[in-house]
């Protein structure tokens, strides 16, 4: 369902962040991307919805194919309609309540009626356990609560794939659990997800597949038990050892 071919991203002449990424992800897969900082995990994720424009390469999600070297605005918007994103810093619309945040894309992008959008939004807020806070503005919510609303907002557009960009990295340790539980619940519902994370144990539990990225390449790709429990790649072994210590 997601196909990435020969994807490159250069920020300038000397910093090539992604080097020839090739990737196929099927429906219902939950893919975690692990790896040291600065190896292009987030860049890869952000290239999938063109928040970051790749230098070269082809991305296909569902029936939309976009070639980086000659992409049009309309192609990019079509591509984005197949996915949604949960951000590290939540990025909830500050001028809208939790409910309005979830309703926004339903009304503006999917052109649903206000009533229909509201019903769907409340349903989703219930799913992430935030229905009782639906009329709160983001500034009145904790980080964990904001991120759960962020997840509801991402679910609202019925995406083919949800992209999680380090969803718990900005959270206080005691708030990580509630967000991970929410993500797990959605994974169990059969959503297709790609998850950039530093939560190794969680990645092992929730994923059906793990990618290990190193220096702009996919260095290992396989089932979580193979990648995390029995790593072959020396860089991966080193990386996991470091996490085992902390």
């Amino acid at each position, binding site marked *: 369902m997601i196909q990435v071919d020969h994807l490159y991203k250069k920020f300038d002449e000397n910093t090539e962040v992604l080097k020839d990424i090739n990737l196929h992800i099927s429906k219902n897969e939950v893919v975690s991307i692990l790896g040291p900082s600065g190896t292009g995990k987030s860049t890869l994720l952000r290239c999938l*919805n063109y*928040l970051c424009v790749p230098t070269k390469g082809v991305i296909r999600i569902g029936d939309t194919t976009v070639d980086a070297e000659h992409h049009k605005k309309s192609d990019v*918007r079509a591509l*984005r*309609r197949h*996915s*949604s*994103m949960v*951000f590290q*810093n939540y*990025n*909830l*619309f*500050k*001028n809208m309540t939790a409910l309005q945040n979830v309703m*926004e*894309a339903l009304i*503006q*992008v999917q052109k649903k009626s206000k009533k229909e959008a509201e019903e769907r939004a409340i349903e989703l807020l219930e799913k992430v356990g935030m229905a009782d806070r639906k009329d709160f*503005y*983001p*500034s009145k919510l904790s980080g964990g609560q904001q991120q759960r609303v962020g997840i509801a*907002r991402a679910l609202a*557009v019925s995406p083919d794939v949800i*992209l999680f960009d380090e969803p718990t990295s900005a959270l206080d340790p005691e708030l990580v659990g509630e967000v991970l539980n929410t993500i797990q619940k959605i994974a169990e519902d059969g959503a297709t997800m790609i998850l950039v994370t530093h939560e190794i144990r969680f990645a092992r539990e929730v994923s059906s597949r793990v990618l290990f990225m190193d220096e702009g390449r996919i260095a290992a790709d396989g089932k979580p038990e193979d990648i995390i429990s029995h790593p072959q790649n020396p860089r991966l072994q080193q990386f996991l050892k470091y996490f085992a210590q902390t």
Partner: protein
Amino acid sequence: MSNNIFSVSYFLEIFPKVVGKLDVTLYLTLIAMICALILGTILAIIAFYRVPVLYQISRVYIAFMRGTPAAPQLFFFYYGLALISTTITNMSATTAVAIIISLNMGAFMSESIRAALMSVDVGQREAAASLGMNGLQTVIRVILPQAIRVALPPLFNDIINIIKMTSLAFMLGVKDIMGVGRSEAALSLRYFETYAAIMIVYFVVIMIFSFFSKKLEKICNEAY
């Protein structure tokens, strides 16, 4: 009594005459404010998106408007450009003043609005894009509502400057608060009372405006 330095009776006589021209001042302010806001918003959006060509032109325009005083701008436009344009020759002085204040303050307002647009976190735009919203939807639904509360205090400042700038209208013969006071004072030679009355009227108008602008700022900040 008429030889007193400050004649209360003359003050009481001139005050209603000055207040009587408040409509001209307020009318000028209102027109200039609306036009300057529209111009300022357009210039700010051009600067925000760095629209090619228009951006370079707008920078020169803003630098020029901010770098020269309003009084020579007024004369240059109404008496200078009038030599080559019949539209300006036939224009009423009030319209000319409104145009110059709008052009001048529009440049200032564009900077206030641009700063406010840039204050909105880039993550807000990314979130809108990731949900498939287009550029216009993002600006109208997300960026502008958040920018307005940031822009309000500097914009209110700009509007107070517009109110005060309308007092230049007398230079083209407009009979506003300042214009009528000036000709009365020239006849009576009672400058003290006349200009005291003029300043009090401006002061009260600006105080009332400030009161309501503070209220509005508060309402905008309470929302979220």
